């Protein structure tokens, strides 16, 4: 049986050059399917890796219980006071807890390159906010004055949006602000934000006395358990606390899921298209060789060897397509940087990661296309009427 199958497969493979267009189209369509799938998986993997690598373990973010993002959260001044009393929070030389109550609104900015409007986060922060961002430095100008309509602008905002030059007034909605300084946190998501004094945002945006999050500097990463236990037990509070790293990971989770939910169905839809192509190619292959197959059967070859020979041809074409798709995607996309909006409208820059696991998944998808695409034509090959041996 092995010799029979090998002979039939060799005959099939040697006949591929007789159908160069169709065979190449099948290989390329399968390569495209794998490329699209790997592109999405690389995006998801890269985004996940970047966001999971962001954030500190000794900074905690407190939001109203059940809030998925800062925009959904709502805390009052009284809540901030109660939260600041929790154990496990780092204190300064004067014994004051290092916390920052913050609120967050979305304003309009104009992208310099594309001249298109885009959402810009305006964060109202407390005076200790810089202590709660590792690597925070003011690179130009100065800190805003409490109570003044002054803006501290993240480096990315300065680079990508127009009208934020230092010392210039800028109108956001119905309010006019003055840019007094530029800050950097070393490339984190905060570099894409505008900062000002929290009470100013509360006043100009009619937020009363409310905040959306409270950031804490923990005494140690392990201290979060102590803090959480206290906050959970405090009957006047209804909040969730998580480390900044966990916070960013949860923010990324939705985006990763979204990318994967788009990527896999799209790849599968395209795979169905490629399947039709593979099917067509293999049918043509069988059709072109009906007399050859019937002759082999007349010589005594089994129908099963005709089936296997066709399957092997289909699988090899698919494997070739899968490998081409995986390698080309790896060459084009691995390490490519891109940015996307996070769940709180924060822009996150990440690198595509074409992992070996994703490449294997792509090749397996290609083989499934080859398997399903070859199945019916292979069954047809096995059932070629022996009388076709006389076909002129």
């Amino acid at each position: 049986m092995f010799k029979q199958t090998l002979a039939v497969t060799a005959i099939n493979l040697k006949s591929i050059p007789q159908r160069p267009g169709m065979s190449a189209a099948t290989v390329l369509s399968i390569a495209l399917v794998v490329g699209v799938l790997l592109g999405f998986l690389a995006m998801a993997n890269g985004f996940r890796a970047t966001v999971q690598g962001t954030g500190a373990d000794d900074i905690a973010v407190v939001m109203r219980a059940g809030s998925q993002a800062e925009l959904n959260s709502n805390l009052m001044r009284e809540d901030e006071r109660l939260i600041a009393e929790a154990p496990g929070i780092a204190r300064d030389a004067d014994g004051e807890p290092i916390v920052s109550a913050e609120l967050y609104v979305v304003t309009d900015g104009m992208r310099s390159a594309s001249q298109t409007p885009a959402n810009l986060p305006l964060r109202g922060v407390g005076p200790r906010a810089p202590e709660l961002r590792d690597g925070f430095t003011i690179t130009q100008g100065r800190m805003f004055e409490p109570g003044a309509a002054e803006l501290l602008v993240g480096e990315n905002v300065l680079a990508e949006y127009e009208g934020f030059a230092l010392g210039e007034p800028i109108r956001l909605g119905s309010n006019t602000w003055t840019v007094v300084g530029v800050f950097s946190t070393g490339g984190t998501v905060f570099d894409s934000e505008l900062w000002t004094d929290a009470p100013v945002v509360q006043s100009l945006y009619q937020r009363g006395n409310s905040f959306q999050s409270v950031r804490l500097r923990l005494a140690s990463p392990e201290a979060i358990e102590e803090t959480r236990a206290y906050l959970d037990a405090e009957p006047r509070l209804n909040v969730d606390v998580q480390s900044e790293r966990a916070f960013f990971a949860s923010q990324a989770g939705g985006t990763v899921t979204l990318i994967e939910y788009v990527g896999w169905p799209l790849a599968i839809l395209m795979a169905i298209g490629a399947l039709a192509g593979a099917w067509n190619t293999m049918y043509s292959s069988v059709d072109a060789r009906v007399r050859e197959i019937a002759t082999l059967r007349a010589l005594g070859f089994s129908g099963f060897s005709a089936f296997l020979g066709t399957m092997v041809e289909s699988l090899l074409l698919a494997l070739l397509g899968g490998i081409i798709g995986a390698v080309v995607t790896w060459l084009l996309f691995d390490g490519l940087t891109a940015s996307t909006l996070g769940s709180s409208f924060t822009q996150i820059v990440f690198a595509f990661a074409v992992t070996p696991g994703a490449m294997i998944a792509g090749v397996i998808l290609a083989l499934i296309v080859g398997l399903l695409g070859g199945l019916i034509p292979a069954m047809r090959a096995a059932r070629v009427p022996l009388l076709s041996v006389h076909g002129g």
Partner: protein
Amino acid sequence: MTANALYELSNLSKRYTRGREEITIFSDLDMAIPHGDFIAIMGPSGSGKTTLLNLLGGIDAPSSGEVRFEGARIDNLSQAKLSKWRAANAGFIFQFYNLMPTLTAAQNVELPLLLTKLSGKERRKRIATALEIVGIADRAGHRPRQLSGGQQQRVAIARAIVADPKVLLADEPTGDLDRASADETLKTLQLLNSEMGKTIVMVTHDPAAAKYAKRELHLDKGRFVEKEALA
């Protein structure tokens, strides 16, 4: 059973259904083919010559009746058993040669041997012998498109004899050849019959080809007709 009979056909009928119409190719045909015979089956188009050859070769099944080969029925074998039977007993020669275009002459001849347990060395020896017998050993490495029609048919004959089958079934083996090539092919078949004892059943519409056979059978309207009756 007739003594020394390779084939015995009894009450053999073949009918096709086309729409609601049933077409009888032949019915209640009886015939015996002894070992070492060389028969030319002749007859007009549609007389059932090729159908009969298909039944002898186990590539078609009769509507009724029996086909016995060395006393054993082959008309009721499963497809898998028929494949094995063909590989062991029958060599086919077709009008259009039916060679694999992507394989060399030697690789084409090797195909039936791939169904045996012969070693690679033994297969190569047999291929060389078969090509030698049909006089085309010097073209072993050529692909079919590099060969003339007559040469391709010789390769096909080498493929038919390489596994040493008991019967050669030839369907219009010279139908696509010029006279000179046809004569060469027929002489080869004659030689295989006279020198190597191969039983040959050849379907042809060419009276000149039929003369190379030991006997002629004329099939007309589903019945064998004596040659004298045709005169």
